[in-house]
């Protein structure tokens, strides 16, 4: 789905940031957090890619050009581009965690000296966004659960099979929690810095309700407990800082 914003909205999008979209169905009152997949700066448009999970996404998927939604955003911090510029970055996306990483790949492509390797994990041969990643990356590796393409298994199976961890400076990952846990562990073992994007059920999206926390290693600066708000301090965290 592509969202066009009112004239002169002048969006600024950091890759990894998300929006909160409100269903028009007034029985569903909370915003749906969806990450920006691509940002068209000139047209003030963003592209969102999502899985139909329930009420809200079902409604969105039925919408056509001309339908309107209330949207809040940009929300969250996103990936730190300056830290990644000029480095060798491995982008690891699993399933519906893949779309949020496309904007990152595209933006890193513009940074001189940055080499993006993408590892994308799919269920099967329905490899959405693969081409876009191929255009934006130095190389793309594929893993599929059913083995229909690339490495049979998950993204880390592909990383290991292809032996591509060696020259990686930074990992940027998004995907299901077991994958993120494995990456946190993998990155720790290999001494690679990993930024992971987390998901949690949200009510406000702006840091007010404390609904969306993740446990942190250290006391969080805002909350003064071992909890950081994913919507505000995240969704992108240094894997070493969170206790997942």
């Amino acid at each position, binding site marked *: 789905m592509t969202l066009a914003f009112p004239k002169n909205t002048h969006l600024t999008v950091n890759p990894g940031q998300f929006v909160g979209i409100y269903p028009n169905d007034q029985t569903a*009152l*909370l915003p749906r957090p969806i990450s920006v997949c691509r940002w068209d700066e000139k047209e003030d448009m963003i592209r969102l890619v999502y899985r139909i999970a329930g009420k809200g996404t079902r409604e969105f998927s039925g919408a056509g050009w001309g339908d309107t939604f209330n949207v809040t955003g940009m929300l969250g911090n996103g990936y730190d581009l300056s830290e990644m510029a000029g480095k060798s970055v491995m982008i690891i996306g699993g399933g519906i965690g893949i779309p949020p990483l496309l904007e990152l790949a595209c933006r890193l492509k513009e940074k001189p000296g940055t080499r993006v390797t993408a590892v994308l994990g799919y269920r099967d041969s329905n490899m959405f966004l693969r081409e876009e990643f191929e255009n934006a990356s130095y190389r793309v590796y594929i893993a599929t659960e059913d083995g229909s393409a690339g490495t049979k298994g998950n993204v880390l199976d592909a990383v290991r099979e292809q032996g591509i961890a060696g020259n990686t400076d930074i990992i940027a990952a998004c995907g299901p929690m077991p994958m993120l846990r494995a990456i946190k562990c993998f990155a720790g073992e290999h001494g690679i810095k990993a930024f992971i994007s987390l998901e949690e059920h*949200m009510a406000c999206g702006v*840091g007010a*309700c*404390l609904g969306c926390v993740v446990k942190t290693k250290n006391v969080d600066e805002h*909350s003064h*407990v071992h909890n950081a708000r994913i919507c505000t301090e995240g969704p992108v965290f240094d894997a070493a800082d969170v206790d997942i």
Partner: protein
Amino acid sequence: MKPSMEINIAGVKFRNPVMTASGTFGSGMEYAEFVDLTKLGAVVTKGVASVPWAGNPVPRVAETYGGMLNAIGLQNPGIDVFCSRDLPFLEGFDTKVIVNVCGHTEEEYLEVVDRLADEKSVSMLEINVSCPNVKQGAIQFGQDPKCLAEITGKIKDRAKQPVIMKLTPNVTDISEMARAAEAGGADAISLINTITGMKIDVERQKFALANKTGGLSGPAIKPVAVRMVYQCAGAVRIPIIGMGGIATAEDALEFMLAGATGVAVGMMSFHDPETAVNVAAGIEDYLVRHNISDVNEIIGAVQV
């Protein structure tokens, strides 16, 4: 002529009757970018305890039909951080501040009350004896009239600001609780806190919230809240701040007609941060349209 929107609760004057409901507006800071805080009657802060609380495990929130469940578990940074960070921020705005106070034990409540005694920018205290999401204490104070009267009395003995006791709807007879708060010396009561509910994810056959149960809020519960406000208005003389599902000026007016002096917008701020401001503007429009010069005229004005 512009109608008068000012209300007075226990000697404190509010620009208009519309406040934010505790826990749904952070400390004001989070929404200050979206909302003009000076258009609110008051900012009511998230519950604050004597020390930082970590709250419950996630998932803490779940959407329901026309509402939501929450089991935040009163995560808060503790009164010290609150006083050094959040209060000074709010002092930058010309709006009243009501601090919501939580605790596990009498002593914990009193510690916070004492600590706030000299904070001039705090207009009132709202004592949350009704949170269903913390294991120990707290809600017992709110479900037993004797305990409620007692803790109210103890807090009143020490508090320098007027005290609002916030009641839980999870009781057989809300008017009995209102009377207990009044007997204990409360300056006002606020209601309703959330109604305990549960959601189960049938595909995964698991509870939607890590805490299993959570507090239900939102438009779904409004009829229950209006009923309780009406019952309390008939039972006590102290002012009432009404809340529970307010989304529009009409919703707020239902509460006021039922007997609330003030009203608060809770989860609907998540749906639209400007809800509270729009509610205030809508009440004013209503007064103009009905040729009512003072908002106080509609308090309890429902015809029998």
